[in-house]
Each structure stands twice: as structure tokens, then as C-alpha cells.
């Protein structure tokens, strides 16, 4: 009976995800959902970087911007097809990520986060000041929307494209997590000196993690450029980077679903709080950050693990799968 219950709940969630665009009648909410999927891809990269490899990046919006503007410039100024634009944006931010991984060999935690902040700020300043290339604060217009044959994508089509890419991302992350590379990353995260003595190259893991998360951010940027149709420097400021890290933390750092849960929750949170009362127009921003602070304080492990733990309690399974490593370590102590 309990097992059937589990099957029913999971298949309901599955059906909801697959048929969401047909259930949702509100076009704006569907657009927000598409943004949420893009953010989920990006936050998954951060979960990979921070949760698995133990490195901090507060400059993820820089990679996001590199991907978006590369794709935009290639498709508008050079008339390249859209896939080539997105792929070259991904590759360019991959290269930037590999370069940014060099400081991580020497620096840790706060110092590394300062380097990444500086990187993100430099990219943002370049975007807003190189007006001849990026359009600067006036914005960059006329980026083509995705199309297939003669069918120009609407929000429903975008939803499925992003969903497939997100599922691919999660699958790749799952495979890497259970490979030699992933396990060595977890070892580096726990103690990189001990990992080095066991013959694990910490540089390899760090380089890979930085490159992978940067590539994901670049891809997300390219997708965003072709979803929105125009670009301005605003989505690439430092506070967006901090929002992406908040997504990873709120979702749960050591959980594969963390990026998805955090991305969807934090993208929808301001929209839910945007009530239509008089005098409430501005307060939703205050409450959004306030709720994030509360979640970080009261659920340091994130929503993802707590959610799965709650679901497991429904059918009384004490599966280890939903426990984070931190919990396991704590219970051993």
C-alpha cells in the first residue's frame, strides 16, 4: 500500500512537470517558469561547484553575462544560427571558468570568493562600458527567438527545450557524482590535503568543477538571451550572483535536486509575494530577502533534503539517499 502511495505521488509530480504548460493558462507565469528553469540550470552548476568540489563562486553572473552577450552578438552581428551562438557562449565561459580556476589552487574560501567577485564586477563593468559592442545601459536589441523550420517558439516550446536541457544537466551531474571524478571531488571537499596524500589530484577536480559550472552558467546565459530577445547589464550585477548562490544554498548544497528546487523556489518567491494590495508594491522585495535569510538560518541543509526527508516519512522509509553527508557526519559524532 505504502509503495503504491509512493508510486502515485511520484507519477503525479512527473505528470505535473510534463504537462505544466497545458495546465498553466497564464502566459506570464509560464515565462517566469522558463526563467526559473534557466536559473535551475545555473544553480545546479553552483551546487556542483560548491557542494561537491567545495569551491565558492560569487561571480557566476559574470559567466552568465559572457554566455548571453556572446550568443547575442554572434546571432545579431554575424548572422550565426542560434545553436552555434549558444554553444560558443558556453565554450567561451568554459574557458573563462578554466582561467578562474587557477586562483583556486592557491586561495581558499573568502579569498577565492573575493577573486570571483572581482571577476564578476569586471565583466559587468565591461558589459556596461563597452557600448560599441554590447550597447551598454541602453541595451542590446533584436536577438532572434528560437525557431524550428517556420515555427517561432512560444513559451510552451521554450519550456520543453529548457526542461530537456535541465534533465540532461542533472543526468550528467548524477553520472559525474558517482564516477571516480565525483568521488574524488567529495574527498577534496572534505579535506584536500588528505585527498592529495591518497593520490587524488585536487587541481584536476577543482579545474573540472570550475569549468563545468562556468559552462552551465554560459549556457544558461545563451538560453536567456534567446528567451528574452534583448539584453541589458542589469541581470548581470553582483547581487544576481549572490542570488544564484542563495538558490544553491536554499535548495540544498549536497543534493542533486538542490539547484532545481532552489532555482524554482527563489524565482517564484517574489512573484508569489507580489500582492495587489495598495501600498504593498515595493514590500515584496524586502520580504523576499527576509524569507531567504530565514531559510538559510533555520534550514542550513536546504529545502531539497528536508523535502525528500518529509516525503520519505510519508511512507516511513529511512532511506539514506535523502540524508546529506553533513547529517551523516553529525550523527556519527
Amino acid at each position, binding site marked *: 500500500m505504502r509503495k503504491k502511495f509512493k508510486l502515485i505521488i511520484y507519477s503525479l509530480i512527473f505528470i505535473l512537470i510534463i504537462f505544466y504548460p497545458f495546465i498553466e493558462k497564464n502566459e506570464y507565469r509560464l515565462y517566469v517558469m522558463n526563467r526559473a528553469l534557466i536559473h535551475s540550470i545555473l544553480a545546479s552548476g553552483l551546487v556542483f561547484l*560548491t557542494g561537491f568540489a567545495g569551491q*565558492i563562486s*560569487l561571480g557566476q553572473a559574470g559567466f552568465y553575462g559572457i554566455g548571453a552577450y556572446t550568443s547575442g552578438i554572434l546571432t545579431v552581428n554575424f548572422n550565426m544560427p542560434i545553436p552555434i551562438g549558444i554553444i560558443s557562449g558556453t565554450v567561451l565561459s568554459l574557458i573563462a571558468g578554466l582561467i578562474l580556476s587557477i*586562483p583556486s589552487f*592557491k*586561495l*581558499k*574560501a*573568502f*579569498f577565492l*570568493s*573575493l*577573486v570571483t*567577485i*572581482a*571577476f564578476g*564586477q*569586471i565583466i559587468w*563593468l*565591461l558589459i556596461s*562600458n563597452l557600448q560599441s559592442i554590447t550597447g551598454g545601459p541602453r541595451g542590446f536589441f533584436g536577438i532572434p527567438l528560437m525557431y524550428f523550420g517556420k515555427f517561432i517558439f512560444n513559451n510552451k516550446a521554450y519550456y520543453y527545450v529548457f526542461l530537456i536541457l535541465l534533465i540532461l544537466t542533472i543526468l550528467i551531474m548524477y553520472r559525474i557524482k558517482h564516477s571516480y571524478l565525483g568521488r574524488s571531488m567529495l574527498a577534496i571537499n572534505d579535506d584536500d590535503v588528505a585527498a592529495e596524500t591518497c593520490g587524488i589530484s585536487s587541481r584536476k577536480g577543482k579545474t573540472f568543477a570550475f569549468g563545468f559550472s562556468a559552462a552551465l552558467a554560459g549556457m544558461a546565459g545563451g538560453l536567456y538571451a534567446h528567451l528574452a530577445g534583448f539584453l541589458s547589464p542589469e541581470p548581470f*550585477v*553582483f*547581487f544576481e550572483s*549572490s*542570488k544564484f*548562490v*542563495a538558490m544553491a*544554498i536554499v535548495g540544498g*548544497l549536497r543534493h542533486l535536486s538542490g539547484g532545481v528546487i532552489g532555482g524554482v523556489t527563489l524565482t517564484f518567491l517574489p512573484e508569489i509575494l507580489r500582492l495587489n494590495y495598495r501600498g504593498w508594491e*515595493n*514590500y515584496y*522585495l*524586502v520580504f*523576499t*530577502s*527576509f524569507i*531567504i*535569510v530565514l531559510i*538559510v*538560518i*533555520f534550514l*542550513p541543509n536546504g529545502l531539497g533534503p528536508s523535502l525528500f526527508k518529509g516525503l520519505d516519512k510519508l511512507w516511513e522509509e529511512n532511506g539514506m539517499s535523502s540524508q546529506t553527508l*553533513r547529517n551523516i557526519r*553529525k550523527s556519527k559524532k
Partner: protein
Amino acid sequence: MEFYNILQNLIGGASVGITYGMVGLGVVFLWQSINRINFANISSAMLSAYLFYTFYTQAKLGFVFSLIFSLVLVAIYGICLRFLIYEPISRRGGARLEFVVATLMICVLWLNVIIVFYGGLPKPFPHIFGEATDFVRVGKFSLPSVYLYIFLVVSILVFIIHLLLRKSFIGKALRATAQNKDVAQLMGINVDLTTNLSFILSTTFVGIAGILLAPIYFVSLELGGGGIGIKGFSAAVVGGLIDPYGTILGGLLIGIIENFSTFFISSTYKDVISFFILVIVLLWKPNGIFNWTTRQETLL
């Protein structure tokens, strides 16, 4: 390109830079006592500037009272930061990263609170340090008098900090706690009190820096946003996150470099240049350039 130009840039950069050093001191005090970085460090600058604006211009309480009230409120905010953010997170097993994200979100929270209550437009700062158009002129040399006032006030403050840290028992206790918490506790130092004190000192110094920066940047959201905060972090990094004097010197250095890059290259890329220098310094000497206090072996 003449001598008085260089001198002008030097003094202008130094007086802005020394306030960056003050912002960096906030980082240093917290790092010494709890080994955490408060990313909402710069918010206290914005808060105190807005509070001062409220008390002085809107409530007309007079200079001394509005200064005292705004700084006391910012100090109370420091205590709140400890008992509402730091302690709950550490009690639930949250590590550094959780503190980082919580403080980043607090930074965003304060920005939004200010937008809700004061609106996004910059407010004019009351003319306490003279009019914005007042210039000190010696021959060809001319500099807004605000800069000289700032330099003077911060120099006096640095001297007070020096007395506090080196000549008083409180300073000794603070430094002992910074070096080794457990041993300091064994020696009969009230570590709980010194932790409170460093939270208070951290937010108050940044608050003073905020009031001093307000004549230059106006009472605006820029005081609580990325730029100045990151320069404060850079100043703290130059001092190796532990040396107060090194931090002040680092701030001076950053301010001067920034001013000269505006003068020689362009004002749009001055931030790019200062961030680039920050990255190079971090890679070259992660322990800080002006760090005479202690060598930290592991920078975890």
C-alpha cells in the same frame, strides 16, 4: 601633468582611501573574533548615513545628537547581527558559506528596506563639512575642502583606534581573543564580551565611514551596494585580514591607485583596474602586503 596635479590626486585619493580603510577595519574586527566575513559589512555605512540624514535633516536634532543616535543604533544593529544571525546559524551547524549567504541577503534586504522607506533617489547630505563648492586653494593647487575634513577626522579616529588597541586592556583582550580564543578564555578574558565588542566596533567604524563618505557619494544606495564594500574587503586583504594598520594603509593605497587611474587612463575603467589589482595582490601575497601582526599559516 604638473606637480600640483599629482599632489591634488594624491590627497584626494588618500582621503577617500582612508575611509575604505575604515570599511576594511569592520571586516578585520569580525574576522579576528569569529573567523567569518560579513558581506553585509557595507550596509552599516548606508544605514548610518540614512539615519544621520533622518535625524539631522528631517528631525533637526542637531549635529552631536544625530551623530550619537545614528552610531548607537548602528552599534545595536551589530549586536542584533550577532544574536539574530551568527549565533542561530552556528547553533544549527551552518558553516561559513551559510553565513556568507545570510549576510549577502541581509545586504540586499537593507537595500530594499531603504528603497521602500526613502526611495531610490540620492538625498543631499547636509553641509556639515562645508559646501560642496568650497575649495581649498593654495596657488594652483585646489581641492574640495570636504576631502581635507574627511582626512582629518579619520586620522584622529585612527589615532583613537591605536590607543584603544595598544594602550588599553580592552585592546589587549581583543588581540588575545584574535590570536587564540581558548587560551584567552583560560587567561580569564571574557570572550563573550569581546565578541560582542568586536561586532559593535565593526559596525560602528563602518557607520562612521558611511557618514564620512556621504558628502562625496551623497546619501544614496551606492553606499550600501557592491563597489565600496568590495574596496573595503580589498583594504582588509592588503592588511592580511588581521592587521588594523595594514588595513588603513591598504585603503590609502587603493584610494590613491583609483584616483591616479582615473587621472591617467579613464574614469569608466577605474573600478576594473582596482579589481584587477586586487586579484593580482591576492595571487601574489594571499597573506597581505602590510601584515606585521601575525602570520596566518592556513587561510581556511
